[in-house]
């Protein structure tokens, strides 16, 4: 087994319990400077509201214990800094370290959004430059940087559409969503107050334009399209799709999760898209950090501009920048303050590092995906054969004959030193393997990945049990998710509390 695994070996790593299990009264990790004003008795000023003993069961540990605790925990994680994440539609690219440095600068990290505009020109100029860069990249007319993530961007986009249609006299009832869409799309449509109508993809995995023509009625507000689709395939007929929608007074929303295939090569605004969101934590390199923060700016055509969330960045006479908090037609705010500014700083740093050469990143991303596709075609079933852009979707049909499914293959890939690809999505491919290497992978890493996948395919044919019981080399084996859902334990409790609660 070990001969075929070239990228990873087992290594001793430290065990570590919960921080609460290391706690002991009287230990301290942090000291404050002494008080330079007279002490005040909180019992006097707070009366019955006083929490006299501090937070019950809060940990009490020393500084080195905190350092060791979190350092040990970190060594249990896979990360981009360690190797490829072939996760489709996640765009797990390199998170440049200089971005972390600039986001932490005094004068950047320290600023309060309520401070006067004259003391915030630096922040406002950063916002303005990022707005302009993203407009140039998307080919749109206006933008909001407020949404905190892609899903919130989608919501903002749909609320903009609703506001626009309401102004026309009818907000309409339905949003069309392809069956290949990411789960946030239908979830968001519901939050925006629309009914979801699914539209089945045609035989090549693309939007079925004939079906669309039938489905677009005066009740339809918009179609939410992902381009390239979640299969990694460019929606060739997108201009036609836009025409059909516009012809009936509906709009075209584009989920920009797959912008890594388009940046610098084409512009959604020129394809007929009316409004779209970007995922800065995907295409624009801001770190995932275990699940966020992200940012989901929404770029739009002129017609939607009046409805943008407040505050809105404006340039006054003389070049001074300011934030306007009152706009009569605005949809309001989707979150407090202006947006995930720290994430926006990182995204701008990324754009500035590349400049006009950002197309090279897109080209390398598409090159890597096609290189991998070429080598794995025939080894894995390829359900849709149209050209791939930045990601490729296989299925487990061949391996399934031996009882090995996509989840098993993914778990075995862990033993080979990689994070799994996206399993079981998109829904239109049963047993999907969705692979997106991004431009950050060297040829060497791609070759190692290809080698691993070929080896696993062989194992699936010869020794399927090995694959089905993977992973074998991790700290923990497959975890019991059933009991975790049946009898959820969602917090630590002190031992006395556990003993005194009723037994199941």
């Amino acid at each position: 087994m070990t001969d075929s695994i070239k990228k990873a070996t087992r290594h001793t790593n430290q065990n570590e319990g919960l921080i609460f299990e290391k706690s002991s009264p009287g230990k301290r990790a942090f000291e404050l400077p002494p008080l330079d004003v007279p002490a005040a008795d909180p019992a006097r000023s707070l009366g019955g509201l006083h929490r006299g003993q501090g937070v019950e069961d809060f940990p009490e540990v020393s500084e080195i214990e905190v350092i060791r605790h979190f350092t040990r925990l970190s060594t249990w994680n896979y990360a981009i800094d360690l190797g490829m994440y072939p996760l489709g539609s996640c765009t797990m690219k390199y998170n440049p370290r200089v971005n972390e440095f600039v986001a932490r600068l005094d004068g950047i990290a320290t600023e309060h959004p309520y401070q006067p505009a004259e003391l915030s020109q630096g922040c406002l100029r950063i916002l303005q430059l990022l707005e302009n860069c993203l407009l140039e990249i998307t080919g749109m007319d206006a933008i909001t940087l407020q949404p905190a993530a892609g899903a919130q961007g989608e919501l903002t986009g749909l609320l903009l559409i609703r506001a626009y249609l309401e102004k026309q006299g009818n907000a309409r009832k339905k949003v069309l969503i392809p069956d290949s869409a990411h789960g946030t799309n239908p979830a968001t449509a519901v939050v925006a107050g629309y009914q979801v109508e699914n539209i089945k993809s045609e035989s090549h995995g693309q939007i079925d334009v004939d079906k669309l023509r039938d489905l677009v009625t005066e009740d339809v507000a918009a179609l939410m399209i992902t381009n390239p689709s979640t299969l990694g395939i460019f929606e060739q007929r997108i201009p036609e799709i836009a025409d059909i929608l516009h012809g009936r007074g509906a709009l075209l929303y584009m989920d920009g999760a797959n912008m890594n295939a388009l940046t610098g090569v084409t512009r959604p605004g020129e394809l007929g898209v009316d409004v779209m969101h970007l995922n800065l934590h995907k295409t624009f390199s801001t770190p995932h950090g275990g699940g966020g923060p992200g940012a989901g700016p929404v770029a739009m055509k002129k017609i939607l501009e009046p409805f943008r969330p407040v505050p809105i960045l404006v340039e006054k006479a003389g070049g001074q920048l300011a934030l306007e908090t009152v706009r009569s037609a605005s949809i309001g705010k989707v979150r407090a303050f202006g947006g995930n500014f720290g994430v926006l700083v990182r995204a701008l740093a990324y754009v500035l590092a590349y400049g006009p050469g950002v197309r090279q990143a897109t080209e390398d991303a598409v090159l890597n995906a096609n290189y991998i596709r070429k080598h794995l075609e025939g080894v894995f079933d390829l359900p849709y054969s149209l050209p791939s852009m930045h990601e490729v979707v296989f299925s487990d049909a061949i391996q399934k004959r031996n009882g090995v499914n996509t989840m098993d293959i993914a778990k075995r890939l862990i033993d080979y030193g990689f994070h799994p690809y996206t399993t079981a999505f998109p829904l239109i491919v049963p047993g999907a393997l969705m692979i997106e290497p991004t431009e950050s992978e060297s040829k060497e890493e791609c070759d190692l990945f290809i080698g691993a996948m070929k080896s696993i395919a062989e194992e699936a044919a010869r020794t399927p049990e090995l694959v089905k019981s993977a992973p074998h080399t991790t700290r923990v084996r497959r975890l019991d998710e059933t009991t975790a859902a049946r009898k959820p334990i969602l917090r630590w409790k002190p031992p006395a509390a556990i003993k005194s609660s009723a037994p199941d």
Partner: protein
Amino acid sequence: MRYLPKSPAERQEMLAAIGAKSIEDLFECIPERFRLREALKLPGPLSEAEVISYFKDRARENSLGYSSFLGAGIYNHLRSVITDTILLRGEFLTSYTPYQAEITQGTLQAIFEFQTLMCQLTGQEVANASMYDGSTATTEAVLMAERLTGRGRVLVARSVHPEYREVLRTYARNSGLRVEEIGYVKDGRVDVAALQAALGDDVAAVVLQSPNFFGVLEGYAEAAEAAHASGALLVVAVAEGVSLGVVKPPAEADIVAMEAQSFGLPPSYGGPFAGVVASRDRFVRQMPGRLAGQTVDARGQRGFVLTLATREQHIRREKATSNICTNQALCALAATVHLTLLGKAGLREMAEQNVAKSQFALGLLTEIPGVRRAFGGPFFNEFTLEFPRSVRMINADLLKDKIVGPLALGPMYPELSKHGLVCVTETTSRQEIERFAEAVERILADPA
């Protein structure tokens, strides 16, 4: 380009392996008329040093060197350098959402610890792994109450942060939820009589904030009783979490929506922060957001997984409890590291310092002729003062002393046109407080 690990020769090799003559071949799927012929007009490319230089220039155009007395939902607190030491570890910073539990036990255990700390702080039984911020957490808590009660009206105190209320209104407009506001009384707390009058059997939730936007601490007993008597849930928003080091948590609340920015996250011109929804065990299936749960692996070893995922968008799609996918995990990690560093004694001491410093500041400022305390209710580290003159004008003068003065409340509360919100934390030195008071006195003494 330094972020791209390919040599020209390798690109050629790979193209040859694919059977493509040039990279252009791989973009043939895009109709020719839509393929850009020229490079985008973007600034750059910048070397690392130039990137740093650009942002340092912007930093110099902001508020470096000024003292600030702003709070209003974003607070300056001491942060340890250790928080960044941990956050900048690549295994945390550049790791993905922990869907593959076997190789993300670090993230999952840290989330479990975060959930525990949030329960301990708020006195609730279960907490999620983070929402975008306090404002969206409050909105999600209200939507949760709507689902739990099946009712369509919400009563929100006017003393809840204006931006939180605005976000709620934006979301409510589309879910058919009716939002009504309840005023405040002389001491700055919610008008319980008005609340009682407004309650009915169609109210899903009553929303309070404590400390509220004026800095005043709400007592919950009466509001909770009134809400529960009519079958509504009590939602309490907490924008200043450090207060919980010395103030009793809202035990009567059914759902707490907290902003965790105060726990080790810099102000960063408004984000990223981390919101938390904490509630009772029996409501957990209606909670939005991710949850990390404890379990065992095939060998009986303790481990952690994301659980109760059927609530979420990737499974439930249009019937999900929320559309949230990406959350604020790294910010929650920062809060976890920060709070374990502070520990029980540290958080209590920090909170007590906030009380002492703000009491001291209040004392100095109310000695100034014409300046009076607006609300008599107990406070933590923020209080509202009434001035004899427009706060905007006073602040314009204070800027000359390099002081960012109190937040003028007039724009958000027209009836409070001469009022300003002052925030003092453990990071405000005595000297800064005395300088501020001295400057205000001087400015007010000048008849101009």
